[in-house]
């Protein structure tokens, strides 16, 4: 990248199910907080990119009544129906193109309104799988988990260990929704069985939440005199084929997305070059698969990262110190929440779940059944 873009402010809501706020207030409060965090006024904004979907929000053109709340009155505004991390990429492209110099990225989902798993049923092929009527994101993920476990000899306990790590991490993150400090493997394995082998605590909780990130181009960062900008060093995005024609065993699209992000950021050895990872693992087994796809472990050996404590809060390479998506999963916002958490880690502001000094962090967002679409963002400090 010839030009550089930094994150100058961010904020997130306290994610929880059935939050006692309207959708408008939820977004307004977080947007206001992010602007304050960046130390700028709404008037400085050039462009606004929001992320939400019509089916999740229960409104056609879901952003239309939120333009005022997010601060887009007479501003360039558009909505991507994607994960927040992809929205961040779109805003980044607008800044790199030189059309604007400050961008606000907002992502939200109110899971309380309508079961997002039902919405995932509406995303599948209406001519085939919707007619058969069996698939939704959990059942598809369960089949994927089964294939993965069979191939590499991963046990239920290994999946439970991932849930234990993330849920107990979430306990020290005040923004997370499912916070279980002393949860044990046996408790996870005793929780309600949805689609075998996935149990309630291995599935991300349905959450209402919102996240906002403010980006600025390098010149503007200097002009505004921002004290602690976090630079976007690389992004990558890739979408896979539809479920029926995909290799369910590996995350091919994530491999491609991370390869382009690593190339952009000049990362050769992700294990040593990165200090912390925040990934969107909707299901426990996905964390293992994502870690493998990112090149942190060889294929099928992801469980060792967890079992040996490498990715624990005080391990060599912490993954999801905030609890990840298992801690709170406001669908569209999840990827952007990961970005916010990375920014907090780099700034050293992650109260309670700071992992020491962080120079470079990776945030990952996913969308679609079995992580069909993946976005990887590499962030770095000054």
């Amino acid at each position: 990248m010839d030009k550089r873009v930094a994150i100058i402010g961010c904020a997130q809501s306290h994610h929880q199910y059935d939050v006692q706020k309207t959708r408008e207030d939820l977004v307004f409060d977080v947007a206001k907080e992010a602007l304050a965090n960046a130390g700028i006024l709404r008037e400085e904004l050039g462009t606004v990119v929001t992320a939400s979907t019509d089916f999740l929000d229960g409104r056609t053109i879901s952003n239309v009544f939120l333009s005022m709340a997010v601060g887009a009155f007479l501003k360039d505004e558009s909505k991507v129906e994607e994960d927040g991390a992809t929205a961040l990429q779109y805003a980044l492209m607008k800044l790199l193109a030189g059309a604007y110099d400050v961008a606000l990225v907002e992502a939200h989902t109110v899971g309380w309104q309508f079961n997002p798993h039902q919405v995932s049923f509406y995303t599948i092929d209406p001519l085939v799988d919707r007619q058969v009527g069996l698939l939704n994101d959990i059942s598809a993920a369960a089949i994927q988990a089964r294939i993965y476990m069979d191939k590499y000899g991963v046990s239920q306990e290994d999946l439970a260990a991932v849930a234990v790590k993330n849920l107990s991490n979430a306990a020290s993150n005040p923004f997370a929704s499912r916070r279980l400090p002393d949860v044990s493997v046996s408790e996870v394995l005793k929780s309600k069985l949805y689609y075998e082998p996935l149990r309630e605590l291995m599935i991300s909780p349905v959450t209402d939440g919102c996240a906002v990130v403010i980006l600025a181009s390098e010149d503007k960062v200097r002009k505004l005199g921002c004290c602690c900008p976090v630079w976007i060093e690389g992004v990558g995005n890739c979408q896979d084929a539809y479920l029926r024609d995909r290799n369910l065993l590996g995350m091919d699209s994530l491999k491609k997305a991370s390869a382009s992000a690593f190339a952009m950021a000049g990362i050769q050895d992700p294990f040593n070059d990165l200090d912390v990872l925040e990934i969107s693992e909707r299901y426990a087994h996905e964390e293992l698969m994502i870690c493998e796809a990112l090149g942190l472990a060889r294929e099928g050996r992801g469980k060792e990262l967890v079992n040996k404590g490498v990715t624990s809060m005080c391990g060599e390479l912490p993954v999801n110190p905030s609890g990840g998506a298992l801690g709170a999963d406001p669908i569209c916002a999840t990827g952007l929440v990961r970005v916010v958490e990375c920014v907090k880690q780099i700034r050293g502001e992650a109260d309670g779940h700071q992992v020491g000094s962080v120079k470079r962090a990776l945030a990952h967002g996913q969308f679609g059944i079995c992580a069909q679409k993946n976005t990887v963002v590499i962030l770095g400090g000054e």
Partner: protein
Amino acid sequence: MFRNCAIIGCGQTKHSSRRRDVSVAELVGQAVDAALLDAGITMKDVGCVVSGNMQGFGGVAQPDLWIGDWMGIPGKPAIRIATGGTTGGSVGQGACYTVASGMYDISLGVAWEKHSDSKEAGATTGLMHVGMGNLFHALTYGLSLKNLIATTAVGAAAGVAVYQARFYMNRSGCRQEHLDMVAAKARRNAAKNPYAHLQWPNCQPSDIAKTELIAFPFRYGHVCPASDGASAIVVAEEKTARKLCKQPAWFLGMGSYSDEENQLQSENYGGVGVIDPSEQMGCRVSAQKAYAMAGITDPQKEIDLAEIYQPFPSQELIFSERLGLFDDGTAWRHMEKGETDINGRMPISVSGGVNATNAIGSSALQRILEAALQVQGKAGEHQVPKKVRKAVAHGWGGVTNYITVTVLGNSPR
């Protein structure tokens, strides 16, 4: 902007009210194929795909996840953009931004709508769903049924546009007969565009005037259809564009500003601070931004052609003023003189526009596409006789508060 980029290929499908011969995925595939063929590239050359439609109309959430295979997405970066009526405009601009940012060299922008997938005429539930939450809310507080009909049903398909037209007519002096003229022009132009939906060769204003009145000033002859169709564009950066295409249509400027809700309602049935929905401040600001980017100081002289998003004839008049093509309140006088005809001084919507073909998600992309065809001189029968140096494409949507303005030209900035 950082680097120049241009449209090097355009593809669209035949639009009609029921494309039952294909599934929505195949429909999209047809437009994509046509665009690739036009650009003379294969799917392997495409770096990034930007797509969009209105998902509530087709009943499939996030259709790009499924239809992606027909757009050549697997293994590529993809972004889905959806902003209501402006979806197509945002997709076109998004495709441009992906290339202009320097991240990708060739991008594909795809937008579509297949209204006939919905069992209701014009996908009513999907459309009403914009304010469904508000409606449920107001009904619990005793919104009377009579008032509900007054606010929603009298306008029927016309919705707020009928009020908007009334405001415009009141402040400009435009009369109902002028709306007939605009609608007749759109049908006539559409007859020359093989892809258009409502084609009516030699349609005269008197023909439109014979159709039944919906609510004054709108007649059935004024209203846009609900079409099935898809369109796609290929955007490339400067070097590639010059290599692949004799006359690319260069992106000169873009703006997409959002105004306060114009339709009397904000979230949860609140009011809005816009008295006159024909004011369209967002369009003024978008045009300003786009013209500034394109280095246009006097749009009245420098713009050669406009493609305006006009589901209703009044909107062609309103937005041509807001785009700075005519002075305030005078658009209908210029139209009356035939200046906006296909061989006029300022041809507007020579493809027939949205008034003749409305596949909502794709409509605004079609405006960009048609403007590009005119700039490239490839429009065929509806090519304007004069040379098109700079053309402006407009998109309109949301609750009449979202605007996209794109300026295309025959030479880069």
